[in-house]
Structures are given as C-alpha cells and as structure tokens.
C-alpha cells in the first residue's frame, strides 16, 4: 500500500488497534462518561479511577475506527499514573498537534507521536480526538 496510507495507519496505531490497552470496565470507577463522534455516530465509554488528583486507573469500551480505538488505547496507557494537571496538559498538546498549532517534535509523547499523521486527514481528526475530548468531559464531571 501507499506511503500516505501508512502515515495514517502507522504500525504503532495498528498495534494498539489490534491489541487495545485498558479495554474493558473498572469495578468501582470514580467517574464514567460517554463520548460520541457526531460525524460518524461512533461512541465510547471512558472510566477513571482518581485518587488525590492522580489517575490511578483507566478503562474504556465502545466502537469506532482504528484511529479512534488506537488513540484511546494510547491515551489510557499514557494517563495512568499521571496527575490530572499533567493529563490536561497532554490533552492540550494532542489538540494542538491536531490543529497544527503544536509541532509534535517539540513534545515527548511516546506512542502519541504516531497519531500526528492524522493531521493530514481532516475528517479523521475527530476520531483521533474522541478519547481526549471524552477525558476532558470526565474532568468536567469531576469538577476539576
């Protein structure tokens, strides 16, 4: 297949898609919110367990395209153990990468970097952000 296609579906993304991390549900989540991509109708559920401003654990479920599934899997992997402050900064960075205001090279984002390719596919940006905007909603629910 073509280079461009591979720049969207990087190996890292396919890996997360094929082996999603933190997929499932928490027994006693601090908060659980639904996120929806209105463009396509896909929906996910995100659960957090939060203690003293630190994200102790994450689980998620729902359907969507490879991009959305991989992105939320990467999200889960990245935010576990982080403070909410740190997670919020991460959300901003991901949004910045997507709208072009932040260069991905300036960040140390690990697997997140693989998502940068989505920027060239405007209709898929919403897919990549689905998990992140849902996380934002979760913080709003918690009033933090």
């Amino acid at each position, binding site marked *: *297949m073509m280079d*461009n296609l591979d720049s969207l579906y990087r190996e*890292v993304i396919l890996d997360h898609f094929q082996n*999603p991390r933190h997929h499932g549900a928490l027994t006693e989540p601090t908060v659980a919110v639904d996120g929806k991509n209105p463009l*396509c*109708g896909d929906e996910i559920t995100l659960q957090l367990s939060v203690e003293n401003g630190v994200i102790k*654990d994450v689980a998620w479920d729902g359907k969507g395209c490879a991009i959305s599934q991989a992105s939320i899997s990467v999200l889960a992997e990245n935010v*576990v153990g982080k403070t909410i402050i740190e997670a919020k900064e991460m959300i901003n960075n991901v949004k910045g990468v997507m709208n072009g205001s932040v260069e991905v090279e300036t960040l140390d984002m690990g*697997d997140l970097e693989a998502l940068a390719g989505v920027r060239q596919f405007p209709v898929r940006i919403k897919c990549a952000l689905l998990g992140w905007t849902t996380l934002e909603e979760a913080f709003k629910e918690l009033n933090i």
Partner: protein
Amino acid sequence: MSFLLPTNEIRKDFPILDTKVHGKPLVYVDNAATTHKPQVVIDSLVNYYQTLNSNIHRGIHYLSEAATQEYEAVREKVRAFVNARNTCEIIFTRNATEAINLVARSWGETNVKAGDEIVLSQLEHHSNLIPWQMLATKTGATLKFIPVDKEGQLDLSNLDQLITNKTKIVAFTLMSNVLGTMPPADKIIKRAKAVGAVTLCDASQYAAHAKTDVQALDCDFLVFSAHKMCGPTGVGVLYGKEAILNAMPPFLGGGEMISHVEWDKATWNVLPSKFEAGTPNIADVIAFGPALDYLNKIGLDKIHEHEMTLTQRLLDGMAANPNVILFGPKTTENRGGVVSFELDHIHPHDIGTVLDFEGIAIRAGHHCAQPLMSVLGVPATARVSFYFYNTPEEVDMVLRALEKANAYFHRPVKTNTLPQTPKGQVQGVVTK
C-alpha cells in the same frame, strides 16, 4: 442479467471520470450521494451565464424573456419525465429535503391534528423523517413505521394495522439509499388510499435509476433532487397533484409567489409560482434540462439493467469473500444499485480510507439514516453505489481493494510496547 451499456462512449461525456486520485484512476461508486454531470450540463451553465443570464418572469427585455422560456421549458421536461398531468404540478425547490419540508409545513400544518398518525418506513433518510418528527411535535400527531425485514425489504404483513383511519399521510422512499431496497409502492399507496391518507414518495434515489410515473403510482406528492441524476446542485423537484397544491397555503413568502399585495395582506399567485418565492436557481434549473435529455437518451430501463449487471457481479464477489458482511437484499430482485456492507473487524471509515488510496470513492457512515442503522445493529456501513458510467472492471477493482483492506488491517505488526499487565480493576481485556 448481463446487459451492459457502452460505457467507453458514455464515459467520454464525463470529464471528471478521468481524474486521478492519489495517483490512481478515480473509481467513483458514491453515486447515491451525488452523481457526476455530463459535459452537456456543464456547457448549459456556461452558455447560460455567457449568453442568457437575467432574472426571469417579470422582465420585458430580451434576456429576461429568453431565460424565462428556457426555465419554463425545463419544467415541462420534468413533467414529461415523471409523467405528471400538468406542468403546474412541478415545483422547483433547492433539493429533495426542502421539497419534503414544504409538504410537511404547508400541507402538514394545515391538515394534521393531535391524535392523527403519520406513517413512514424504517428505511427513511433523515430528510424524510425529521420534517415529520417536527410536524408530529408541533401538532401532537404520532409517527408509525413500516418495519424492515431481515432481507432489508419492508415487511407489509401488518400494513392494515399500521395504516388506519387515523393515518393522515404515508411518506416512504421508493428506494433505500442504504440498502438499495425498492419497496412495493403500489401496495402501500393502495392501502393509504383505502383509508383516505395522502401519500408522499421519496424518489431521491429512484428517479435517476428507473422510470418514475406519478400517474401510474397515483401518489399525491413525489420528490427528488437534480444532483443525484446528472443535474447540477441546488435544484430539487416537488411534484404534487394540482388540486392538493391548490388547496395548500404557500410555504415561503416573497417575490413572484404573490398576485396582489397590500400593506397587511396579499393574495397568492397561481401554481407553480405560488411555491417559488424569490429569484429561483435559474441557471441550474435550465442546466437540469440537458441532464434529463441525457438520461432519456440512454434510457432509464437500460440504466437499471446495466446497474443490475454490476450489482450482481458485486454481490457474487462479496459472497466469495468470507470477511464481507452484507446488509440488505442478497439478490437483484426489487432493488437498485446500492450495496451496504461491513468487513469483519474493520470499521467502515477505515475501509473508506483504504479504498480512497486505491482511487475508489465509496461512502462510509450512517448515510443520514441513523434509525435504520439501529435496526441493522451497527453505527455505520460502507456503501457502494453505481451509476450507468460504472464498469464491471470497476466492480472488480472494488472487490480487490476490499481484500487488500482486509489484509492491511490484519497485517502482523511489531508490538512496540509490551502489552500492559491488566490491573486489578480492569476486567476482561478484549483483544480484537
């Protein structure tokens, strides 16, 4: 079922078909969304703006008279195309959606009361659903739906219970934009007539692909969009029986739809002007004329046959691919050339993206039919839809691309991070 049109010749009339997408020749099978336009339609627009451009109906100068005649000549062409009795029964709107809203507002708000019932089918596009939801909310009427069976056909077994004396209007599609299904309009309309209900047929998908005859159907209203049948964007058609249209109040107020205007009241112009307020989309209506001529020249029967040949080939190919999950009719009976499907474990949008890189334009999503998606049990499908310029070779390219997509998403990847150990609280990590 192996009739094919001379696509070699036909494709020369469609300049866009020579486009390359991502370096590959364009394979356009998103015709249910919109079709391409033959050069004669494009030429008509150029000719209009270079030699005729003018506002119509009230002008006394040469350009205005000429433009008026061309505009009204297309109304007559549309009349003939759907075999309406009278040219004044043809109203030009922006699109099919506006045409349905016109009926829901103008006819609906005058005739539908609390307790009345509005019957639709489960196949409907949002454009033939939301206007009726709005009407129901405003009036207190109830919506009822003719169900879809496992094959994607309408299940008419309870039709007499669905369409009753309470039913004021039955509005349904002549062809599903998701499944390709062509419901038995005659049976539905017959039942509607038996209880005195008015009928609206959504021919948005149908009119471009098979012969529409409003007198044979005997429906009260019928709508479609020019852009789905070789015409330009911005033109819809509402057919309505003259007596019903005459009894309806106007929809939009403004220039052209009036007869006599005083400060606080006005009287209305005759049909069709009563329903065409303001400056119409003159150039595009005129350019719709050559589109209709073009379709007539090829012949709607032949268009349908050609599409069924392609559809058969696609269905056969899909049946041979174990990863394909097909929605809707499995045969070419009572259907048009629209085919919805899924690939096992691959989201329709991902299929769409992979096919795009092969130059193939399909649609992925809910196709403006979210309730129908809930019946199918999926949030979205991938959809291939044909027109008369598509070829068997293109069908094969689609089939091959689907195999590639499958391989692409199931290719072995180097797992670059170790799978995390599931934490205590995380239950059942489902590996896809």
